[in-house]
């Protein structure tokens, strides 16, 4: 299938609102790369190929020698062992569990063992005790962008909610307690909110449409399962701002699982945590072929892992989930196309 006809075909299927119908046919695994070239569009601009690694969701506790410390250490060692070394590492949020400075300090001490530079964003577990104060003191800006070998890489804070605590007279610890629960039904839907949308608009204004964009957020940029904040409320606005680009590669933490979706020019992949895996929520997956196996609760490393992403000259990306245990079905083991 030629590039043009595939694009047309997908455009039609999007308009018909029947994208999931074609999911099986175009399951964008490395296997299907041979046949279909994957679902993600290649960009026309040629860039220098590179690799980077991604870690996320360590959920460190302020408890000495906690089991999650060792798993983050393992993930860092795993990334350091990749040859050739990735150019940089991205960290997709929830370094801590209860937003305590001690958790974030411990996390930074472990992440600082990475042999390559890393960039990090916030998760809700890092934020709602002191509204990000300790985190900003350790890591700096909540949202940022940089250019690397022709690609433009963006990190944003997607876990902002409207104030639910003032009227209830909640203490910071109580506020954090609410947010710590995935199924918090008092906290509301997360988003990046107006200030970051304005910033994003300015950030990408001068970039040409053929610029490859990599965008990292804590939560997915699509309505997966809003109940668990497997969503970003202003994702439609983000999609609108980024609509001019040929291809946007979005990666996100928070879901603690293998999951994939593509909407228009944005392909989106979920990441493995280094704390615990989450079961799939009670909704149909848009790409049911791209999922992980059930984790063994007796194996504390099952369901967890690190990631390596390989970017080709034409901005084809392959995401390798580096699961610490026997988690991945064969098609995902070979990597998925993003």
């Amino acid at each position, binding site marked *: 299938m030629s590039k043009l006809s595939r694009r047309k075909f997908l455009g039609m299927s999007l308009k018909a609102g029947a994208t999931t119908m074609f999911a099986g046919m175009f399951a964008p695994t490395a296997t299907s790369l041979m046949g279909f070239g994957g679902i993600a569009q290649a960009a026309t601009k040629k860039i220098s190929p590179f690799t980077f690694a991604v870690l996320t969701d360590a959920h460190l506790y302020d408890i000495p020698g906690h089991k999650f410390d060792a798993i983050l250490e393992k993930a860092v060692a795993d990334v350091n062992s990749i040859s050739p070394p990735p150019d940089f590492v991205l960290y997709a949020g929830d370094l801590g569990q209860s937003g305590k400075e001690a958790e974030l300090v411990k996390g930074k001490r472990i992440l600082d063992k990475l042999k390559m530079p890393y960039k990090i964003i916030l998760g809700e577990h890092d934020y709602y005790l002191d509204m990000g104060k300790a985190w900003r003191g350790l890591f700096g800006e909540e949202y940022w962008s940089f250019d690397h070998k022709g690609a433009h890489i963006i990190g944003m804070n997607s876990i902002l909610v409207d104030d639910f605590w003032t009227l209830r007279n909640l203490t910071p610890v109580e506020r954090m307690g609410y947010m710590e629960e995935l199924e918090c039904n008092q906290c509301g839907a997360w988003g990046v909110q107006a200030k970051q949308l304005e910033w994003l608009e300015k950030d990408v204004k001068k970039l040409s449409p053929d610029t490859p964009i990599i965008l990292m957020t804590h939560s997915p940029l699509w309505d997966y399962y809003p109940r668990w904040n497997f969503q970003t409320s202003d994702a439609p606005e983000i999609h609108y701002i980024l609509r001019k680009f040929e291809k946007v590669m979005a990666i996100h933490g928070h879901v603690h699982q293998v999951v994939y979706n593509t909407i228009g020019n944005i392909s989106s992949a979920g990441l493995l945590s280094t704390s615990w895996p989450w079961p799939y929520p009670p*909704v149909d997956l848009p790409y049911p072929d791209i999922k992980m196996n059930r984790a063994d*609760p007796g194996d504390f490393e099952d369901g967890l892992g690190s990631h390596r992403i390989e970017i080709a000259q034409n901005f084809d990306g392959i995401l390798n989930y580096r699961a610490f245990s026997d988690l991945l079905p064969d098609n995902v083991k070979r990597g998925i196309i993003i």
Partner: protein
Amino acid sequence: MNNLRRFTTTKNLALAASLLLPLIMMNNANAKTPFTAAETADQKERLMTAVKQGDDLWHNPKLGSNGLACGNCHPDGAASNPHTWPKYQTNLGKVSTLRDMINWCIAVPLAGKPLALDSDEMIAMEAYATYTHRGVAIAPGKDEQHGAVPVTSGPGYPNANTGNR
């Protein structure tokens, strides 16, 4: 044949009729229901109190010693798979119940002290896990991970909004 012949005696027919009579009456539209509306409302309320208590325990790290709660891995009771028990559980090495598995999770991933199997706390945890899977077909031994019933708002079960959870 002897048994059959014996069953057909007049005496046994009368006995069978007396046993069947209450069943027939229960199917009669005019029969009295087993419980009054007030009684069933009270039963429901008591069940929901247990579900709420189970929900609170499910999300309480005090059951363990490492900060984790059941809800860390099982939001909304997901993947507790209450409809699949009893089943042979490999890590327990025997045909087990959901309560056995809850205790294993408290003892191993949470590094806590198991509950008495007949304690109010354990029954409340079972009530919560089961209630979040209401309507799911019972399938003992089924190898399935279930994401619990879809929830759009509230705590996942009917309750008065206390503003706490």
